[in-house]
C-alpha cells in the first residue's frame, strides 16, 4: 500500500503543508488537537504545530465559526473544522451572513480567507440528524466557494487551493471516504484549481456528473456498463460553486445525454441545477431528458434495510444511464 494514500491522510497533509508554509494558517474545531480529530483527520498536527495553531474548541459551533470569521477579517487564514456539517447549521448565519457577504458589504475592503471543512452527508447509519448533505444549500449562496472532493489526490490539491483562496470556502468531505485508499500517481498537481470539474472517465455515449462519494459509484456503474457496450463519461464536479458549466456542456455536446448523481435530497439539489443548466445551454444537444439520481426524499432512517434504499446505489445509476440511452 506504499503507493497509495487515504483521503484522510491527504487532507491532513494538505493542511500540514499549508501550515508549514504560512504561519497565518491555523486549525480550530472540536477535538482537532488532543484527540487528533474526531475522525483522525488532524492526526499528529497538534504535535507538530502546538496548541496555538491546532486549537480544541468547546462545543459552540456558532461562536467558534464567528470567531474564525473575525480572525479571518484581520487576515489570518483559519481552517474551521466542523465535526460534521450537520453541526454547521448552528453556525450557518456566520458562514453566510458574515463570511460570504462581508467582502461585498464592505465594497471589497474586508476579505475572509477561511475554510470551513468537515464531513458532509451520510456516514454509517448515524441517523437523521447526522446525515444531511448541505451541498445545494451552500452552492446556492454567492460569496462562497463550495468544494466537495472525491479522490485523495484531488482532495489534497483542492484543500490546499481552498486554504490559499482569499475567499470563504466551504469544503464538504465525506466520512465514508476518509479511509479509502487511492493510488499516488507519478505526477500530480499539487494545487487543484477551484472551479474546475474533472473528466475522470472518458466516454462517448452518456455524461454522468457527480461529486464526492457518489463519483465512485458512478465509476462502478460505468465499468459495469462498459461490459454492456455503453461508453460512459464521468465528470467529478469537485467544485460546486462556481460550477464548471463549460466542462459539463462540452461533454453533453459530445454525448447528448446527461445523468446527475448525488446523495443529497432531490428538490432544489445540485442535480436540479445541472438539469436547468443543461436545459439552458444544451437543450438542442439533448437526445433525452436529463435524469437526476438523488438520495431519497426522506430524512435518513436508521434501519439497515431502509438506509440501503436512501443513498443512490450502483444499480440505480445503471438504470438511469440506461434510461437516458433508451436501453432500459
Amino acid at each position, binding site marked *: 500500500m506504499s503507493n497509495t494514500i487515504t483521503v484522510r491522510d491527504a487532507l491532513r497533509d494538505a493542511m500540514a503543508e499549508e501550515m508549514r508554509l504560512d504561519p497565518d494558517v491555523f486549525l480550530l474545531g472540536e477535538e482537532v488537537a488532543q484527540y487528533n480529530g474526531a475522525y483522525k483527520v488532524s492526526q499528529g498536527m497538534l504535535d507538530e504545530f502546538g496548541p496555538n495553531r491546532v486549537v480544541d474548541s*468547546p462545543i459552540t459551533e456558532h461562536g467558534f465559526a464567528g470567531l474564525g470569521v473575525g480572525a479571518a477579517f484581520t487576515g489570518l487564514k483559519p481552517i474551521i473544522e466542523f465535526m460534521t456539517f450537520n453541526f454547521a447549521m*448552528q453556525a450557518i448565519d456566520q458562514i453566510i451572513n458574515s463570511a460570504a457577504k462581508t467582502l461585498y458589504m464592505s465594497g471589497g475592503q474586508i476579505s475572509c480567507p477561511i475554510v470551513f471543512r468537515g464531513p458532509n452527508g451520510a456516514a454509517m*447509519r*448515524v*441517523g437523521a440528524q447526522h446525515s444531511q448533505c448541505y451541498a445545494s444549500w451552500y452552492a446556492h449562496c454567492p460569496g462562497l466557494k463550495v468544494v466537495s472532493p472525491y479522490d485523495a489526490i484531488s482532495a489534497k490539491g483542492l484543500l490546499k487551493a481552498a486554504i490559499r483562496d482569499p475567499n470563504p470556502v466551504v469544503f464538504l468531505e465525506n466520512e465514508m471516504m476518509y479511509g479509502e485508499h487511492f493510488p499516488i500517481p507519478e505526477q500530480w498537481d499539487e494545487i487543484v484549481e477551484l472551479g474546475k470539474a474533472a473528466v475522470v472517465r472518458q466516454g462517448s455515449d452518456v455524461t454522468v456528473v457527480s461529486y464526492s462519494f457518489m463519483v465512485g459509484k458512478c465509476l462502478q456503474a460505468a465499468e459495469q456498463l462498459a461490459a454492456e457496450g455503453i461508453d460512459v463519461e464521468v465528470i467529478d464536479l469537485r467544485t460546486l460553486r462556481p460550477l464548471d458549466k463549460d466542462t459539463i456542456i462540452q461533454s453533453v455536446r459530445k454525448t447528448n445525454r446527461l445523468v446527475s448523481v448525488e446523495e443529497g435530497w432531490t428538490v432544489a439539489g445540485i442535480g436540479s441545477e445541472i438539469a436547468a443548466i443543461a436545459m439552458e445551454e444544451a437543450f438542442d444537444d439533448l437526445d433525452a431528458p436529463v435524469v437526476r439520481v438523488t438520495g431519497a426524499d426522506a430524512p435518513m432512517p436508521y*434501519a439497515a434495510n431502509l438506509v440501503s434504499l436512501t443513498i443512490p446505489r450502483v444499480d440505480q445509476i445503471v438504470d438511469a444511464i440506461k434510461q437516458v440511452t433508451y436501453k432500459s
Partner: protein
Amino acid sequence: MKARANKEQMDRDYHIGTIDPKKVPVEELLKYYRDMLLIRRFEEKSGQVYGMGKIAGFCHLYIGQEAVVVGMQSALTPEDTVITAYRDHGHMLACGMDPKGVMAELMGKATGYSKGKGGSMHMFSREKNFFGGHGIVGANVSLGTGIGFAHKYRNSKAVSVTYYGDGAGNQGQVYESFNMAALWKLPVIYVLENNKYSMGTSVERHAAMPDQLYNRGSVFGIPGHVVDGMDILAVKAAADMAVKYVRDGNGPIILEMKTYRYRGHSMSDPAKYRSKEEVESVKEAADPIQHLLAMLQLHKVTEDDLKQIDKEIKEIVNQSVEFSDASPEPDPSELYTDICI
C-alpha cells in the same frame, strides 16, 4: 431587606436534605437497585451486541451514570416529562420504557420505539412522557424549555426535566433558554450531567470556571446546586427539592450532577484522553451500584435476594435481545412514511 428575607425563606423552604439510607424502606432501595442494575446490564449488553455488528452508527453508553436518572425519576410523577440528548438509554429505561422496544430500536427493527427509523439517539415514548433522544448537542435544552413552556401554558403542575452534558453546557442556546425560562418562570429542572468529559475534552479544557457549572444560571436568577451524582440518595434528595421548588411556581432550577462515564464517549471511542487508573479509581471509590449495595447492607437483604434480582435483570436484558433478534426489519415502504402526517 425584603430580598434578603426572601432569600432566607427560600433557603429554608428549598434546601437539599440528607436521606439516611437506614430510614429508607428496603423495598425502595431494592427498586433503585433493580432500576440501576437494569441500565447497567442493558448497556453492557448493548456494547456486546454492538460488537457483534447488530447495532450500528453512534451508540453512547450510560454506564457509571445510573444513579442520576434513577434518582431523578424517583421524584417525578407520570405527568412530568423528560428529555435528553443522545446518551439516552438509561433515561428511557428509568422512564419505564420497555427494554425490548429500546433494544429493538438499537438493532433497527420494526418493533423498536421508532420502528427502527430512529436508532440509539432517537427514541421517544408519548406514553411515558419521554421526549427523546436528540443528537444535536444543546438542542434538547431549548426543546425541554419549550416543554416546560407548554406545561405552564396548560396550567399543568408538570415539570420538564431537561438533561444535558457538561460539554453541551457551553452551547449558546442553553443561555438563551435560561433567560427565557427565568423570565417566564418556566417549570424546568435542568439536570447537568457533568461526567467530566465532552467527548475527549475534559471539562477544564472546554469550560471557563469548570467548578462553577451549577452556577451558570445564577446570572439569570436560576439557582444551581452541586449533587453527588454517584449517590442515589443524594440525587433523590436534590430531585425532591428541585421538583418541589419548580412545582411551587418558582421557575427553573439547575442540578449539576457530578458523575462519570466508564466507557468511551461512543462505541468508537478508545478514550485515550484519560488513564485507565483514572477510570478504575472512580469505579472503585464511587461506583453508584456498589454504593447502593453498601446501603442495602444496612438492611436485611441477603446475597440470595440480590442474586435473584441479578438473575431477573439478566433475563429481561437477554429477552430484549431475543425479542429484537426475532423481530423483522421495518417494511421497505416505511422509508416514505412518517415524513409528514
